[in-house]
């Protein structure tokens, strides 16, 4: 496979991995806060987290452009103050993927955290574990099955992101053309064989990750 043909595959892997590096800590922290803390704007945050899941990708993409575009409030500020331009960069693809992947993790992990008996955490604190250790040694291991499922769903969503990426990162061959964009472009050009290559790679990737996760849960089950 030529470099240009290989590029969308490596790019998609990089974008999804970086997105997961953002989504995993942010999503778990958010899920924990929503599960364990009661604060005034909690239900508002609940709704906001859900938003990218229920909105069409085109709306997400549009909002990203409006906010982070060169003329958007955040985009203009980033460029003026930090000399950073997000739109039409691989970083924009990472951001778009992260935004749509985040709710998959939060909405899976939050009920799992809520299901951990509070007594378990209370006892652990009384045994001298600081809150951070309680999370790592009690809450997370108790909920890990759902957390893993959430991570898999989030990864699949991140690696397959299309609409918002197209609008916010653009289709720049050799820079932002992830597999889903390449599939669409190849299909429009009538190059179905080229599209099929990425369809197969993308499908095997998502399926492979899901199977791996199922296997990990199974292996621990058998212990």
């Amino acid at each position, binding site marked *: 496979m030529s470099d240009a043909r290989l590029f969308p595959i490596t790019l998609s892997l990089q974008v999804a991995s970086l997105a997961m590096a953002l989504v995993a800590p942010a999503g778990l922290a958010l899920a924990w806060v929503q599960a364990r803390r009661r604060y005034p704007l909690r239900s508002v945050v609940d709704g906001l987290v859900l938003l990218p899941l229920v909105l069409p990708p085109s709306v997400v993409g549009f909002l990203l452009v409006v906010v982070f575009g060169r003329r958007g409030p955040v985009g203009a500020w980033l460029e003026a103050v930090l000399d950073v331009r997000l739109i039409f960069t691989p970083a924009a693809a990472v951001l778009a993927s992260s935004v749509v992947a985040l709710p998959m993790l939060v909405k899976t992990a939050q009920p799992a955290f809520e299901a951990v008996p509070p007594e378990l955490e209370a*006892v652990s604190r*009384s*045994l001298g574990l600081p809150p951070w250790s309680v999370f790592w040694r009690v809450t997370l291991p108790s909920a890990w099955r759902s957390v893993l499922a959430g991570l898999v769903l989030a990864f699949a969503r991140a690696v397959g992101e299309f609409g918002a990426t197209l609008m916010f990162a653009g289709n720049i061959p050799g820079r932002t053309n992830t597999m889903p964009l390449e599939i669409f472009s190849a299909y429009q050009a009538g190059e179905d064989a080229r599209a099929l290559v990425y369809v197969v790679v993308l499908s095997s990737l998502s399926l492979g990750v899901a199977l791996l996760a199922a296997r990990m849960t199974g292996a621990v089950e058998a212990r």
Partner: protein
Amino acid sequence: MNGPPPEAAVPALEARLTVTAGDFTVTSEVQLREGVLVFFGPSGAGKTLTLQALAGLLRPREGFLRVRGEWLFDSERRVDVPAHRRRIGYVPQAHALLPFLDVVENVRFGLPRRERRADNPRIRALFEELGLAHLAHARPPQLSGGERQRVALARALAVQPRLLLLDEPFASIDREGRAELRRSLREALRRHGTPAVFVTHDAEEARVMGDSVLRFVRGRSVECGPPGVVLPRGPSVAVSGVAAGTPGQRPDGSVELALGEATVRGPASLLRPAADGRLTVELPAPPDET
């Protein structure tokens, strides 16, 4: 290793707390020099809320808490030591064990990493003491209710707490098991010299476990003393009638209320009607203080 601590003169626990959860508020005054203090009262009287406030799991609205003279909470001076630095053990009624760890791992759970070795002699001694040696590698779902609470107790003692809080720890255990567990708990606490607060709504359990009893009624701690004094005793006399006036307090602290037509009911051993129509009521002497 754990004889009576040298600072025994300092009370194990002194607290005055007002705790609010939702629209329920409980106010309590707690004193414990040594041994086991029982929080006694019906469900919903505020025992568990107070216990959780002692553990640092709930923040009291106001009041103070000192353990062995150390300030752990003081609303006026804004002292609030977090739960994990209080060195106060906590054993709830259920859900105490981590289901994904075996018994040994559970018991070692609160120890610093370097002490979590399998051959830690202190842990081995605890296992012997509580009769857990044969269960070392069982998982919590395989244990009986009584075994689970033994493990929970071993784990709480493993980190050598200054005070142990137990919230109806034997409530879901059958009768015979409970007697056995009470004995084990009392022995373990004595051997380790660990003062404890034990919550129960069962008068029999309160009598067996408590060196002293603090009685809770509808969100207040109302009475503290030896079990024989505080706990409801066997035979009693009930007097009812229409009050002829308001109750009056006498200099000795007792209450006197004149009744119009009154009904007195009680066992014949305590009531002695005289020929002149007067009634003598004899109350049993308070039991010896322990």
